[in-house]
């Protein structure tokens, strides 16, 4: 079952004594086939888990790079079903876990039940929903569990300890720590040490949960996090897609080599 494979991906990395690497790109950017190609390249390049954005126009949690990717996908006519198609096609040929990252309105308008059904069909392992905070998300998170999908709770620097405890208590076995107060893709404005301290607090409170660290991580800083469970790089990849398109290069190839570079840095 997918929630199990997801957790196992983290365990596997841990066994290799390294942090897991997650990538974020927007499903359907710049179109269905290249997006799938990008996933394939990422898969070949050593990623542990793929986060696939189900783009939303009113993506208030995202900075410029992901907004651009989203805009490209949406204005190319990509629908929710297309994103599921891409994931399904990818999963049909790959073991790598896929997490959907999206906004509540995408799930709501699709219908929660139908959405989860589709996730199962396309072998989605987990869901991150930017604007569906604890405790409002508890009913949905339960439904996810029933469908063997990990609902990934979000934590951030200003989540106080009381709240942290409560969220961790309700969380599935993977959580996500937002490294700083900002939208995606901003410059890291806190030190890596501070982030790691918070990470360690989370781990202390809830040693069994795997914790992804995200927001602001690039090839330059990723190495700082090698002693954590996992980190995700998104905006840097989305920007690479934009650049490749601008220069009429193959985005999949370029994203792939960036992922290899990230992987190298993470583990060096």
């Amino acid at each position, binding site marked *: 079952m997918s929630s199990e494979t997801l957790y196992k991906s983290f365990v596997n990395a841990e066994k290799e004594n390294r942090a897991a690497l997650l990538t974020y790109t927007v499903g359907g950017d710049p179109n269905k086939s290249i997006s799938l190609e990008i996933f394939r390249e990422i898969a070949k390049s050593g990623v542990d888990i793929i986060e696939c954005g189900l783009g*939303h*126009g*009113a*993506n*208030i*949690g*995202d*900075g410029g790079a992901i*907004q651009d990717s989203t*805009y490209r996908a*949406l204005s190319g006519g990509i*629908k*929710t079903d297309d994103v599921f198609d891409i994931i399904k096609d990818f999963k049909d040929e790959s073991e790598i876990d896929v997490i959907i990252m999206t*906004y*509540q*309105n*995408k*799930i*709501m*308008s*699709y219908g929660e039940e139908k959405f989860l059904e589709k996730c199962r069909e396309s072998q989605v392992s987990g869901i991150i929903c*930017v*604007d*569906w*905070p*604890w*405790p*409002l998300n508890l009913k949905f998170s339960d439904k996810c569990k029933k469908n063997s999908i990990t609902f990934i709770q*979000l*934590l*951030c*620097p*200003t*989540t*106080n300890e009381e*709240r942290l405890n409560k969220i961790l208590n309700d969380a599935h076995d993977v959580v996500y720590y*937002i490294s700083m*107060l*900002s*939208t995606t893709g*901003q410059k890291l404005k806190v030190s890596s040490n501070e982030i790691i301290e918070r990470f360690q607090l989370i781990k202390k409170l809830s040693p069994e949960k795997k914790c992804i660290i995200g927001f602001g991580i690039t090839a330059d800083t990723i190495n700082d996090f090698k002693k954590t469970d996992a980190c995700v790089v998104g905006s840097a990849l989305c920007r690479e897609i934009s650049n490749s398109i601008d220069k009429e290069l193959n985005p999949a190839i370029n994203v792939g080599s960036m992922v290899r570079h990230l992987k190298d840095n993470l583990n060096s």
Partner: protein
Amino acid sequence: MIQLQKGVPLIDQHDENGYWGGKFGGNQIAESLNHPIEELENEFKKLRQDDTFIKERDYYFKNFIGAPTPFIKLENLTKHLGGAQIYCKLVSKATGGAHKAYNAVVHSLICRRLGKTYIGGDTGAGYAGKMLSMAAAKFNLKCKIFMGAKDIERQSINVFSMRSYGADIVPVNSGSQTLVDAVSECMRWWTSENEDAHMCVGSTVGPTIFVKICAWSTAQISREMKKQVIDEFGEVPRDMKLINCVGGGSSAAGFWNEWIDYDNVELIGVEAGGPEGSKKHAAPLTNDSPLGVLHGATQYVIQDNDGEIEETESISAGLDYPGVSPLHCFLKEAGRARYTSATDEEAIEAFQLVSKNEGFVSPSLEPSHAFAEAIKIAPTLSKDTIIVVDSCGDSAKDSKIIAERLGYKT
């Protein structure tokens, strides 16, 4: 069916998760905003009970915004239409020219209480931004205004004001380049800056606390009007209809606030119908748009099957918003208010008719939508019916648009 509670302020009729009627509103926000929102909720709870704060608010409402704004009978229009008696609450006389001043002053005062020195806000028609920068200048706050590039173009007079007050205007080039994108961008900014900065949402939209603060602020309109109505009629008229335009819904919420419990007072909200024949109405309530989540709250939203916000089109920048306040969703669902729309053409015609007949009332395009409805229904009603229209904005900001539209030569 959802029920309203009598004797409880409308803004407090939400559940512990911030939902009115169990489903409208809420705090569908990124985790990073949870803390500042809680902080704001706590501060507001305290300040509402704080006499010094209330006195301060009232001082600025009176001396700076100029409360009370006039309540006048539109004799000529009444005669011209030959039916219900038409009155007008001239909210456009609030300093700056619109009701947005109330919310801006309250948020600025709160910002100071929070010990923050930076405030940011969204704006569509430019009024919310104008008022916020005006108040920020007065209260010595640094100010950042997010405004869609399209709105910057069409509401240049208000943009001028913001600059003169020293605000930093951030043009938003994403999406439809209008209010919806400005709000998104403002929320993104606040996500990054909330440790030092306060955010003002320009209407009764956004997370629950913003809906509450905004409606609490604009409630000044009906608080002062209630006295004026009783002065004029000796009592609450047997048959009274309060007509207000609805974009985000802050003006209507304030105009209606004191009247919610009066069943003999009909509340009519008028949304933007857009150009005749266009399908891009900004009228989610009138057209039964599906429920959705926008800017942190659940509400009826103009969207496609995939949950994507659809572009709206209205001659009135202030009504050009695909969502609508949870308060209005609640009032609609509870059957307390009825919602309809007016087209661009009807609004323009209403503007002309009102200006030519009444002089002193020179509504901007937003309240011109409300007047359009009054003009439609007044002739069918008896002389015992009192219609009050909230003229919540002054036409100066729309002079370019209207003059072009009507082919005025200068």
